[in-house]
C-alpha cells in the first residue's frame, strides 16, 4: 500500500531534482524549470499531507475531510504561474540587456 512516506520520498526526489537543476543550469529558462520542480515538490507534499492527515476526527469516524492542503496547492500553482510570467519578463529584459540568458553574466548584484 502506498503510504505517506512514498509521497514524501517522491517529493524529496522532485525537490532534489529541482535544486540540482537550479544549481547546474546556466540557462535562465532551465532554472525556472528547476523552480517549477521545487514548487511541485511542495505541492506533492501538501496534497499528500492533506490526504493522510486530518484536522479533526478521522474521515472513517465520520469526520469531514480537510481541504487546507489542497487550497495551499492551488495557491502555489497560481503563484507559480504568476512567478513564471514575471520571471519570463525579467529574462526578456535580461536578454535585451546582455543579449544572452546565461545567468553567469548576471553579476550586477555582486558586493
Amino acid at each position: 500500500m502506498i503510504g505517506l512516506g512514498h509521497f514524501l520520498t517522491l517529493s524529496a526526489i522532485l525537490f532534489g531534482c529541482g535544486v540540482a537543476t537550479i544549481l547546474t543550469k546556466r540557462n535562465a529558462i532551465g532554472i525556472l524549470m528547476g523552480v517549477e520542480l521545487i514548487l511541485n515538490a511542495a505541492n506533492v507534499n501538501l496534497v499528500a499531507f492533506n490526504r493522510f492527515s486530518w484536522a479533526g476526527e478521522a474521515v472513517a469516524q465520520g469526520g469531514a475531510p480537510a481541504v487546507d492542503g489542497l487550497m495551499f496547492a492551488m495557491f502555489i500553482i497560481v503563484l507559480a504561474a504568476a512567478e513564471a510570467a514575471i520571471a519570463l519578463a525579467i529574462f526578456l529584459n535580461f536578454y535585451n540587456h546582455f543579449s544572452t540568458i546565461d545567468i553567469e553574466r548576471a553579476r550586477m548584484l555582486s558586493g
Partner: protein
Amino acid sequence: MTPANLLVLATALPLIGFAIVVLLSSRIGSPRFWPWFTVGMVGASLAASTVAYVTFMSGDGAVEVHAWNWLQIGSHADGSPRYLQIGPYVDKMTVLLFAMVTLISTLVHIYSIGYMEGDSRKNRFMAYMQLFTFSMLGIVLGNSLLQLFIFWELVGISSYLLIGFWYEKRGPQLACKKAFVMNRIGDMGFLVGMGILFVKFGGDLVLRAADREGGGVFGSLLLNYPGGAIDALHAGANEWWLTIAGIGLFMGAMGKSAQFPLQTWLPDAMEGPTPVSSIVHSATMVAAGVYLTARIFPLLTPAAHLFVATIGLITLVMAALIACVQTDIKRVLAYSTLSQLGYMVLALGAGSYTFAMFHLVTHAFFKCCLFQCSGSVIHAAHHEQEMTSYGGLMKKMPITAACFAICTLAIAGASIPYTPFGLSGYYSKDGIIAATVNYGDALAAAGMNWGAVFYWGPTIIAYVTAFYMTRAFVLTFLGKPRDKHLYDHAHEVNWTMWAPQVVLAAFAIFIGWGFFKVGANLHDTAPAMAQPFEEREMEHGYHFVHGALLHGFGWMLSIALGFVIYINGFTISSRIAAIPGIAQIHWWLYNKMGFDGLYDIIVVNMFKALAGLMGAFDKLVVDGIVNGAAWVGRELGFLIGGFDYRYVDGTVRGSGRAAVRLGSILHRTQAGNIRMYVLILFVGVFTALAIATPFALGWVWFGLPQH
C-alpha cells in the same frame, strides 16, 4: 640734636656716600671730585661724632637707649610678646669709638686719595671704604647683639671687597676668600652664643645700661633678662650654659680680631691696598672683635674669662715672635697688630675692660699711622714691600720716617724714666700688664700657680714689641740703601698722604693724656663689674709694672738691641740665624709657625676627604637610588607600553582587522551569482534541518500526539 640722633646721622652719612658714589660716579662729575666727595661724607660724619662726643661727655653721662620693636618672635614665659629690637645705644664707649672710627676713617680716606691715585677703579675703592666705615659704625651703635651681628656681617663683606680689591691678581683673590671664610668659622660661634642666650636664658639680646652708680669711662652694660639681674645667672646650673654662650660669642671676636687659632687670615689680608690694611688693622675690623668682647663682658663667667685670657696670651706671644723674623714690612705690622690684639683680649680676659678699650683706642692711632707710613714707603718704592730692599730711606722721606719713629716709640711703650710721662701706648699697655698681674695673682690665690704666665707673657712680649718695631724702623729708614735703584727713585709722598700720617702721629703721642692723667685713680673709671679687683690689689699690679717697665729702661734696652743688630742690614742677624737650632726656629717662625700648612694638612684635607666621601656617597647611593628609580620607571614604562601596544592596541587593531578580513570573506559571497546564492540557501536550509532534526524527532517520539 641728642647724641643718639647725631650718631645715627654719622652712621648714615657713609652709607649715603656709598650709594651716591656707586650710582653716580661713572656718569657725572670729574674723577677728582668723587674721592673728595667721600672724604666730605666721612668728614661730616666725623663732625657729627665729635659734637656727639662733646655733648655726651659734658652731659650727665646717662646712657641713651632707644629700642624699636622689629620682629615679634614668640612670647615670654609670662605671655607678653617677645620682640627683636633695633635702635641706637649710646654710652661713653659708643661716643668714644665713634669719634675714633670716624677720625681714623677720615684720615684714611684722605690718604687713599694719594695712595690710589692712578688706579682706574679708585671711585669704587672709595665707595667700599664708605661701606666699611658705615658697617663699623653700625656695630658700635647697635643696641642688641642681633643688630651687632648684622653689621658684623656687613663688615665681613666690606673687608672681603676691600682685601680683594685688586681682584685681577691671584693673591688678593685668595686672601679675601680666606678672610671671609675664617670669619665665618668665628661667626658660627657667635650664632651659637646668641642662640643659647635667646633660647636657654630667654634674653632679648638687647644691651641695657647698668643699674648702678658711676658708669665709669666706658659705662657698663647688661644684657636684659626678664628674670632679673645677670648676677643671678652666674650662679647655679646655668653657669655652664653661660660659659658656653660667652665662649661662643667670643669666637666671633676671635674671627674678627684674628685671635689664635683663627689668626691666619690677617697677614694674608696684606694683599689688599695699604689704606685697607691701615683701616682694617686699626680702627675697624679687628677692633670689632675686641669691642664685641667688651660689650658682652658682664656675661662672661670665670671659666670664659680664663678662656679669653688664654687665647689672648697665646696670640700675643705667638704673633710677636713671628713678627721678629718677617721681612715684608706690612707683614711685620700685621703680626704686630695680632700681638697687640692679643694684649687687648688678654686684658678683657683678665677683667680689665677699661684698659682693653683704652689700648684699642691708642693702638688704633699708632697702628693706623704705621700702616700709612709703610704704605708711603711702598708707594715710593714702586710697590716693593720687602725690607731687604729698603734701607736709608730717612733722607728721602723725612716726614714719613719721623711719623714711623714716633709710632714705633708709642707701640714700644716708651716713656721718660722715673717720670710719669710717656707716649700713648705706654699708658694703655702698662695698664694691661698691671691688670694681668692681678689676674695672675688671683689665679694663683685660687690654687692655679701657673697664673703667673698671664703677666710674665705680656711683660716679656712688651720688650719683644719694642725690638721688632725697632727692627722694622731701622731696616727701612736707617743704614745704607740695599737697593740702589729703588733708593734713587724714592721720594717723599704728596700731602694727601703725609698729612694724615702727621695727624695720626700727633694723636699717637697725646691721646693717652686726655683719658688718663698718670697717677689718677685709673680703676675708678672702669665699671664695677668689669673691674674685679680691689683698689689695693690694683696698686699691687701697678707697683709691679713700675718696677719692671716704668722705672727701668726696658724699652730702651730692646730698642738699642734692635738698633745694634740691624743698623748694618741683615749681616748680624743672618749670622745669628745661621746658628744650628736657631736656624730651625727661624725657619719655623718665618713660615708663620706653619699654621697655614697645618690647616692645609688637617682641615683642608679633612674637608676634601669628607667632600670626596660625600661626593662618592652622592654619586653611588643617592644617584644610584635616583637612577635606579628612573631605570625601574623606564622599564616599567616599556613593559606597560608594550602591553598597551600589543594587547590593548592589539585588541583594537585586531578586532578591526578581523572585521575587515571577515568582510572580505563575506564579500566574496556577494558575488552576484544566483546559483551560488541558491547553493548557500540550500546548504543553510539543510544545515538548519540537520540541527533541528534531533529536536524534531525527540518531539515526535515523546511529545507528538499519537493517532
